[in-house]
């Protein structure tokens, strides 16, 4: 359920719906920040049916990626053995 995609906040329009322009790999869509009012320009937000539902925690994402990288390194010697 619940297709939601991270995008970057480019611009915020004050108003009851806190409408933001959010970029998804270059394509832009109007997204309401009413559920994530703390988001600011430059933040990544996770967007579902036209609403941001969370501010993406970039540090947490980085930690996950580093953990994956470490795990990949562990597997490396076997793969690259001649």
């Amino acid at each position, binding site marked *: *359920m619940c297709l*939601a995609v991270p995008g970057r906040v480019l611009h915020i329009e004050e108003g009851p719906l806190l409408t933001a322009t959010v970029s998804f790999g270059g394509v832009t869509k109007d997204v309401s920040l009413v*559920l994530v009012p703390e988001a600011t320009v430059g933040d990544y937000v996770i967007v579902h049916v*036209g609403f941001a539902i*969370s501010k993406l925690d970039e540090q947490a994402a980085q930690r996950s990626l580093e953990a994956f990288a470490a795990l990949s390194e562990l597997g490396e010697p076997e793969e690259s053995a001649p």
Partner: protein
Amino acid sequence: MKYVTEFRDSKAARALSEAIRRTVRRPWTVMEVCGGQTHAIVRFGLDALFPPDLTLVHGPGCPVCVTPVGLIDQAIHLASLPGVVFCSFGDMLRVPGSARDLFAAKAAGGDVRVVYSPLDALALAQAHPDRQVICFAVGFETTAPAFAAAVVQARRLGVKNFSLLVAHVLVPPAIGAILNAPGNRVQGFLAAGHVCTVMGCEEYDELVRRHRVPIVVTGFEPLDILEGVLLLVRQLEAGRAEVENQYARSVRRQGNPEAQAILREVFEPAPRAWRGIGEIPQSGLRLRHAYAEFDAVERFRGDVALVGEGGVEDAECRSGLVLQGLLKPPDCPAFGNRCTPERPLGAPMVSSEGACAAYFRYRRRTDSLQEVRHGE
């Protein structure tokens, strides 16, 4: 795309797959609750990365699949009324009601429109003040706050021709129902990361306490799902049962307070029938009394009464068992012969996340896949 592409890295996927293989020592059956995760598993062929002892069961987390036939019949009836614009997410249009689907209602003259957001439906209502715009409010806790926000905005703007046909469902009661079902085989769950983004993890603590079953809140990219499975089998092999959060970049323990507040402001829990499964207590949402004017069932009371709530599910469809993980789609007698994506008996054969459709399209020909693989 940043924060998407990195979570699809093949080297890390292989490493996670290896780690899962090393961890699994006994046969386990785990369920990914969410249709979005089922979709990712199918799209990226992730099941090939799991060891044979690990069985993944596709759960009931496809809101399109579990919307009861009676509600779809009501939707079709409302969509066919003159003066009505009926809005829906795209994947709902092909799901069969008792006799036909929303596409058939459109073909018969109903004004049925696909929207991306509840706000698009609200905009249609503003653009067509002479028409009644009804939006099919389908979805889990992730989607309900969006519909709630649209309703609040409609009230603020004084939009009088906008209403919802509410079909919202809640995840924890469904997991409870699966765990309580006689013959349950599911030993651990990947919980839906976006539902938990809104609701947080506390409801799941309760399930873990009551049923001693591990639950890992998991994201939707391949590396998320693989890591979620790894954390789950680690718990299973160690005999632990806890709520773990794999999807920390989006899910906070407390969830999203703004989203929860607006959800509670507009909706309240209600009993809800799940297609193929039956009624699950307090597993749905309905509009609170204060927002009854936005309830299509209230606004079109006479018309909805004509349709009733019953709805006739196809007697042969065993999707309820499939959605609870009690039956594999290919073991259903109707699978692939009397029930196909072109002529579906039940919803899971329709939606691209539906377990039956996924099996039909990708697994029906596993043997051929093997041949191709060996032919390389």
